[in-house]
């Protein structure tokens, strides 16, 4: 029979919309509105998983996000498979396939269940005491075994096929939780037009009202009140309703993160829609109306499939029209289970209720139930259960006021609803750093002093009566005090830790943390071994560390600790609540930041041209730069050789646009640069350029670049590609905070100006026909000069500079014109064999001339003198950024690492960059290292390999032979001057 456990009527499911899913390969029929858990129960499925450690058969414990047991893999198609989904929150959708986890070979027959038999030797923390011999076995034998046994589901193997997005939002009031308290809060808060967001993690708003069939509010059935409230809220333009949205993190300054499930509940994913959306809300006021979690009872074998929370039994019956069993025993220490029992009876089920409390303590509940024909056994404890893959009976026994347990008796049943009282969901409050307060009357921690603009309301604050919840919510939403009339809720419970038993408590398995298989005796053991802090107990036993983060177990665990230590509960305290409230997919948090949107890919104006001309690119920071331009059949080495040759012999063209550029303007511009750079700037003439080096205050090289004086009060500063942003930030910092009196303004023009470097003996010939208004003759436009004019009719700042050692120009043009200018140069240069070159050739060319690259020859520990630029320091300057640090004792040592050239004895051996240098390769390890190779290339121009290196006392070692590491050993190399080509630097003047 299909859906044998479906009740014939009732529920909020849509019987007109049947659907079908699969569980472990079997067809499961369900209706729209079902959760997977409801669908499984409707089909008589009880056993849905195996526990973490002992592989105990497990069923469904709860109906909501606190579920620790029923974790399933869900398969929604390729790239859409994931583990550890709580069956109680996954909505049934047509075509999804779900399966159980953590067993082999099958759910029914799981060999891992031997662990249950071995459990006497596997108590909390057993692994700290063993697996130590022989030493090597830990990693080779024990650990792999432990790892394979642990873990729950199987991680996906395919890339996620779904999309995720983010949304930032602001509101006056964010209400979390749409039960009676939250609805009332939202109504009150939105009354005057203020922006209100109401979020609830369930598909429908209403919280407990969704399954409370009998209560009335202000004279109307609670369901009607709920519908009315929702209609009112939906009609208000200032209200945003977010169903299926879990608030999972409460961060500083009322920043709340929520995840909205947009796609999974739909049968077919519409590709335009994201699967999930991360909301980041900044709220002026937050109302937490997150309800309370029911506590399981701790007794032997309280984990059998079919044993559930009492309120969950009620939810399955009333909301999903599912009978979790035909003969149900409710076991309780409090009042709320009586309502569940009454509803179960009303649904036609066979019901018995066992209450640990004496009859006198039970209030009107027993009479009410007996009047309905329900057997009520007050003053009874639960000492066990029967059954294995499904509960078949609950073993109860009378218990007197002194805890003396009488004879056992088994109540045959196929379902149990247990209730050990309630725990307010204070997770978000606590995350917000609010201080919790222990309320003895309800044996629970409740919100105390808030740390942010926050109010808790309703059951989240330990208020369990419906009318009181409504009034509390209304007030939290800022409403003027008002009363709600509602059916009184049966409330109150007696806190019990582990139920009294006649068995040897030291030996039974009474579960506290279901998922992690932590029992009451594990907690006792931890305390016995000195783990007295509740945080230690958590870590030693792993209680509260499972995917439910202790929602059902924390109170029991800390209660047990308090009991054993005989300390009041507040002295034991709780463990720390941390985000997320329920597990959140990485995808949600990542949002759109995937693939091309992971990090911006910055490309220069000539990127497309380079791509079309076969460039291979390299990543430099966020930039993608042309690395080299291989021709068909060429490898990188050949391409770079050809590119270098073209520059040395004729002309090469290079996209240098990524250079940072800063326009420094104002009367004090020169003075400002004078303080920022190590060298002198006051006397630089307009129209001239100078190479500058800047330090951080600690004296180490920070950046370098050519600076041009465009006018007395205007400089064009260039920085390294990677340094652009931080150099500007560094300059702004000094300008604003140290020297606010200087009249200087800084503007980034890195992307205003594209830079085309035209380098080589024929550079002028290529350039000349395209330029107007600039006399290119060497005499009037010498090396290290700058001119303005036009090129191809567009304005240019034309620099005569060279990072290659050849006659060269850097042609700055407004970025959108770069492509046209480049193409014009390209056309002009054809007759000279103009060759595009990439960053690699650029590196070789500059190394041949011994020019440093900040970040390659330097690493944040290198001073100007170390790289041979000590001479640049303007001695006359009293101060510049970093100057004082250069006078520290360690900066003056003769054995500092200094930049030198290195020539391997084997001329064609290209040493490895990063290779270490020693004087004696035969010394014992650890060896004394003298330095390392910073740059190393094959140089056609030199006809041999060349390298730059930082070597201790290097300048005093000229001509010495040192030994450089290679992948296989050492290679001898001679220390030389760090200039390999055109040592006098004459070619730039050509």
């Amino acid at each position: 029979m299909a859906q044998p456990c479906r009740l014939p009527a009732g529920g909020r499911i849509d019987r007109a919309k049947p659907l079908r899913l699969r569980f472990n390969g079997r067809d499961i029929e369900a209706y729209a509105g079902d959760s997977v858990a409801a669908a499984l129960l409707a089909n008589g499925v009880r056993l849905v998983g195996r526990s973490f450690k002992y592989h105990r058969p497990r069923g469904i414990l709860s109906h909501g996000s606190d579920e620790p047991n029923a974790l399933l893999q869900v398969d929604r198609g390729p790239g859409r498979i994931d583990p550890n989904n709580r069956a109680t929150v996954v909505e049934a959708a047509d075509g999804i396939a779900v399966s159980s986890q953590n067993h082999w070979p099958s759910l029914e027959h799981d060999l891992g269940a031997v662990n249950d038999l071995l459990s006497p030797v596997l108590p909390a923390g057993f692994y700290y005491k063993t697996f130590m011999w022989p030493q090597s076995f830990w990693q080779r034998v024990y650990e792999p075994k432990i790892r394979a046994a642990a873990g729950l589901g199987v991680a996906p193997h395919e890339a996620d096929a779904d999309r995720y997005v983010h949304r930032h939002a602001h509101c006056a009031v964010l209400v979390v939780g749409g039960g009676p308290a939250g609805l009332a809060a939202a109504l009150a808060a939105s009354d005057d037009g203020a922006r209100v967001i109401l979020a609830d993690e369930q598909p429908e708003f209403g919280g407990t009202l969704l399954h409370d069939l009998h209560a009335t509010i202000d004279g109307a059935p609670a369901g009607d009140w709920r519908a009315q409230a929702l209609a009112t809220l939906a009609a208000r333009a200032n209200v945003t309703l977010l169903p299926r949205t879990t608030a999972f993190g409460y961060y500083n300054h009322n920043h709340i993160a929520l995840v909205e499930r947009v796609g999974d509940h739909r049968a077919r994913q519409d590709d335009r829609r994201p699967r999930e959306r991360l909301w980041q809300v900044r709220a002026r006021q937050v109302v937490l109306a997150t309800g309370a979690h029911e506590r399981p009872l701790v007794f032997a074998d309280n984990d059998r499939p079919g044993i559930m929370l009492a309120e969950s039994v009620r939810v399955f019956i009333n909301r999903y029209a599912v009978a979790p069993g035909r003969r149900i025993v409710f076991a309780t220490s409090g009042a709320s289970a009586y309502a569940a029992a009454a509803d179960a009876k009303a649904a036609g089920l066979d019901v018995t209720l066992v209450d640990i409390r004496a009859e006198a303590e039970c209030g009107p509940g027993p009479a009410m139930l007996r009047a309905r024909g329900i057997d009520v056994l007050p003053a009874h404890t639960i000492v066990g259960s029967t059954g294995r893959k499904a509960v078949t009976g609950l073993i109860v026994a009378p218990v007197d006021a002194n805890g003396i347990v009488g004879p056992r008796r088994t109540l045959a049943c196929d379902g149990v609803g247990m209730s050990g009282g309630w725990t307010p969901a204070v997770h978000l409050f606590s995350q917000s750093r609010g201080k919790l307060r222990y309320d003895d009357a309800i044996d629970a921690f409740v919100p105390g002093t808030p740390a942010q603009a926050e109010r808790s309301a309703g059951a989240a604050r330990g208020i369990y009566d419906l009318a009181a919840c409504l009034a509390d919510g209304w007030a939290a939403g800022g409403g003027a005090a008002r009363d709600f009339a509602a059916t009184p809720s049966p409330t109150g419970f007696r806190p019990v830790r582990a139920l009294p038993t006649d068995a040897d408590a030291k030996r039974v398995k009474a579960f506290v943390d279901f998922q992690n298989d932590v029992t009451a005796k594990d907690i006792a053991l931890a305390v016995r071994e000195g783990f007295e802090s509740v945080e230690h107990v958590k870590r030693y036993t792993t209680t509260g560390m499972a995917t439910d983060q202790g929602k059902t177990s924390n109170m029991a665990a800390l209660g047990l600790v308090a009991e054993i230590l005989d300390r009041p509960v507040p002295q034991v305290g709780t463990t720390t609540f941390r985000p997320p409230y329920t597990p959140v997919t990485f995808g949600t948090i990542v949002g759109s930041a995937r693939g091309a949107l992971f990090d911006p890919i910055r490309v220069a104006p000539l990127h497309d041209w380079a791509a079309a001309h076969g460039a291979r690119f390299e990543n430099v920071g966020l930039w993608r730069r042309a690395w080299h331009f291989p021709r068909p059949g060429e490898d990188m080495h050949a391409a770079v050789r050809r590119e270098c040759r073209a520059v040395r012999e004729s002309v090469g063209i290079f996209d240098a646009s990524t250079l940072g550029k800063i326009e420094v303007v104002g009367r004090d511009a020169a003075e400002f640069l004078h303080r920022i750079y190590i060298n002198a700037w006051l006397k630089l003439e307009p129209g001239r350029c100078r190479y500058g080096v800047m330090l951080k205050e600690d004296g180490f090289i920070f950046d370098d670049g050519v600076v041009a004086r465009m006018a007395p009060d205007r400089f064009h500063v260039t920085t390294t590609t990677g340094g652009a942003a931080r150099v500007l930030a560094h300059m702004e910092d000094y300008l604003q905070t140290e020297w606010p009196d200087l009249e200087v303004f800084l503007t980034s023009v890195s992307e205003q100006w594209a830079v085309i470097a035209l380098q080589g003996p024929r550079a002028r010939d290529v350039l000349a026909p395209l330029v107007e208004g600039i006399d290119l003759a060497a005499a009037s436009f010498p090396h290290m000069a700058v001119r303005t004019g036009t090129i191809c009719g567009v304005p240019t700042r034309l620099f005569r500079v060279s990072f290659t050692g050849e006659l060269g120009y850097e042609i700055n043009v407004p970025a959108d014109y770069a492509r046209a200018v480049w193409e014009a140069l390209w056309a002009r240069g054809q007759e000279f064999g103009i060759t595009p070159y990439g960053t690699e050739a650029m590196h070789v060319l500059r190394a041949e001339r011994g020019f440093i690259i900040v970040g390659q020859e330097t690493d944040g520990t290198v001073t100007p003198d170390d790289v041979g630029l000590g001479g640049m320091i303007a001695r006359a300057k009293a101060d510049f950024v970093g100057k004082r640090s250069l006078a520290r004792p360690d900066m003056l040592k003769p054995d500092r690492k200094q930049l030198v050239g290195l020539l391997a004895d084997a001329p064609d051996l290209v040493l490895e960059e990063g290779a270490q240098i020693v004087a004696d390769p035969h010394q014992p390890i650890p060896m004394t290292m003298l330095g390392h190779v910073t740059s190393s290339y094959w140089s056609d121009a030199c006809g041999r390999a060349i390298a730059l290196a930082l070597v201790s006392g290097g300048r005093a070692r000229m001509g010495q032979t040192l030994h450089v590491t290679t992948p296989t050993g050492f290679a001898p190399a001679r220390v030389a001057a760090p200039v390999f080509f055109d040592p006098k630097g004459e070619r730039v003047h050509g």
Partner: protein
Amino acid sequence: MAEQAARRTPILAPSAARPEAAISIAPMVPAARFALRLPEAAAKAIGSAAGFRLDMAINRSAAARDGRLAARLGPDEWLLHGPETASEAIARDVEAALAGRHFALVDIGHRNVAIAVAGAHARAVINGGCPLDLDDDAFPPGSATRTLLGKAEIVLLRPDEAPVFRIECWRSFAPYVLGLLEEVGREFAGA
């Protein structure tokens, strides 16, 4: 001899905005843009320069004649905006108006790219990456500020009553900014 002025190759091809669509994300045509820096006190004293109002509150913009606009991004910083063809005129006029003062006028016409985001879901799409409150109360017409969109810095403007937002970013970030907006906007496209 240069035969003719080189043509412009913007990084994003401009397209027409469709404010009536549920969402419209359209790169805009090139424009004239300047970063103007001027001490706060001077701005207060002169009120406006070359037709650009300068003494508005920080993070506010003001339209000027001929499709021009000044947005105050900080105490001493304005973004001046106008049609592409007005570039030289703006430079000339502002230089003239501020002559003798301490100021910086820097052409950033090619540094920035603009994207217009319009339509009923414009705010939702921008808030897909921008953390600011774009509600009318918090970001009324005339607002202009530097902020972030995902991992890119942007200037976000809402020049006037029209429900059209303008996002300015640096050139090399434009493909990312457009890509992020389109990705977030997919949900609403064609809706």
